[in-house]
């Protein structure tokens, strides 16, 4: 790489023409970059390809001749390229992480306001409404003719329903991919917040029953999904 001639002063003088020619080339290439934008005759991918090629040519031109790497020892090039290569790999790695944006396929918030019914099978955890109050089933049972929080099992009274404070809501979601899911209420008077890290991170399905202060719908809630550096939400 060290290309010194017999007369270094003469060599420096010759470089004047190299520098001048390179400078004219850089101006010409920049002109091409601007013209290709102005004419608007090409598609986006073509423009990006041309701009990328022009930038690489200019970059290499300045690096090789203006920065003397053409005439310097290889160590200087290695030092510079180490940083450059890491920068380029960082760029592509981050762009790759963003290639798989999460998608919220389904999201719903539904109040569980089904009235209590006689002679019906209930399972543990079922919610029902009776006289403007909400109850959760404590055991699986068949309801009687009238509503009661207790039933007789083996001649022993057993709690069948437990009154709950608040309105039960079923919150369900289906997401393509993500490493963190965050659901929150948009109404300050009706607070709700749930955050978790799903595993596995693909084809995520989730559901949660929560007691809220007020009746709410899907529009009152927000789901936010994070995948790598990508954040998406249902709004």
């Amino acid at each position, binding site marked *: 790489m060290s290309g010194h001639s017999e007369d270094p002063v003469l060599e420096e003088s010759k470089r004047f023409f190299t520098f001048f020619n390179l400078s004219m080339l850089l101006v010409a290439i920049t002109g091409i970059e601007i013209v290709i934008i102005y004419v608007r005759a090409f598609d986006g991918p073509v423009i990006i390809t041309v701009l990328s090629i022009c930038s690489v040519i200019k970059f290499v031109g300045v*690096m090789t001749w203006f920065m003397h790497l053409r005439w310097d020892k290889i160590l200087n090039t290695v030092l*510079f390229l180490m940083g450059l290569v890491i920068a380029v790999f960082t760029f592509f790695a981050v762009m790759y992480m963003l290639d798989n944006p999460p998608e919220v396929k389904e999201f719903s918030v539904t109040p569980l306001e089904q009235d209590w019914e006689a002679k019906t099978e209930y399972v543990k955890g079922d919610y029902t409404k009776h006289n403007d109050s909400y109850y959760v089933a404590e055991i699986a049972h068949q309801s009687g003719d009238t509503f009661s929080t207790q039933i007789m099992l083996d001649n022993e009274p057993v709690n069948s329903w437990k009154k709950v404070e608040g309105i039960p809501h079923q919150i369900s979601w289906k997401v393509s991919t993500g490493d963190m899911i965050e659901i929150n209420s948009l109404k300050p008077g009706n607070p709700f917040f749930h955050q978790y890290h799903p595993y596995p991170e693909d084809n995520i399905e989730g559901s949660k029953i929560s007691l809220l202060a007020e009746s709410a719908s899907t529009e009152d809630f927000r789901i936010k999904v994070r995948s790598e550096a990508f954040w998406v939400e249902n709004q």
Partner: protein
Amino acid sequence: MSEASAHALEHHEPETSTGIPNKKVLMWAFLGSDCMFFGTLISTHLIYRKISATVGGNTLDVRDIFDIELTSFSTFILLASSLFMALAVSAIHKGNLSSTRWMLFGTIIFGAIFLACQVYEFTHFVHVPGNELTLSSYRGEPHVFGSTFYVLTGTHGTHVAIGVFWLIGWFVYSFTGKMSTADALDIECCGLYWHFVDIVWILIFPVVYLMEYAF
């Protein structure tokens, strides 16, 4: 080769194990690390440009505020300043102090013009009626574009400003009568820095400005 010429090219640099002056190795190592710095800034801008492509429900279009003629002009100015810088380094290697001084002056002037264009551009962006681009908003709507744009181009502008001050230092020094070919290596390092800010702009100009017009 004349005796004067040989003397002019004698830089009295101590021997090093690499055969390259330590200052130069240090400068190249710094430029390599600065590559990573700008690499992350450019990546950040592109990523947020991709994932935050809308503002207030509409597609983000900054072409209304970009003044591509002004930015193209400042790009040509920076390229021309690189030629002056290369000639300044060449002149000091040849021992031509007068030429070195005027080439440094040319680089300073062109660098200052570039900075003036950037200051005008930023001021215009922040105050353009109805299209204000601030650090945290665009047209009054919260958006990240201003943050990544100003941090990236502002960091580059800061590098240019540092380069201009460095060059002014050399320009003033050239009037003291102390400047000689022994300073060639230091001026060369200054030149390396200046060319580096030039190649960073070579990337920023198409990536940040021209690509906005591609789609």
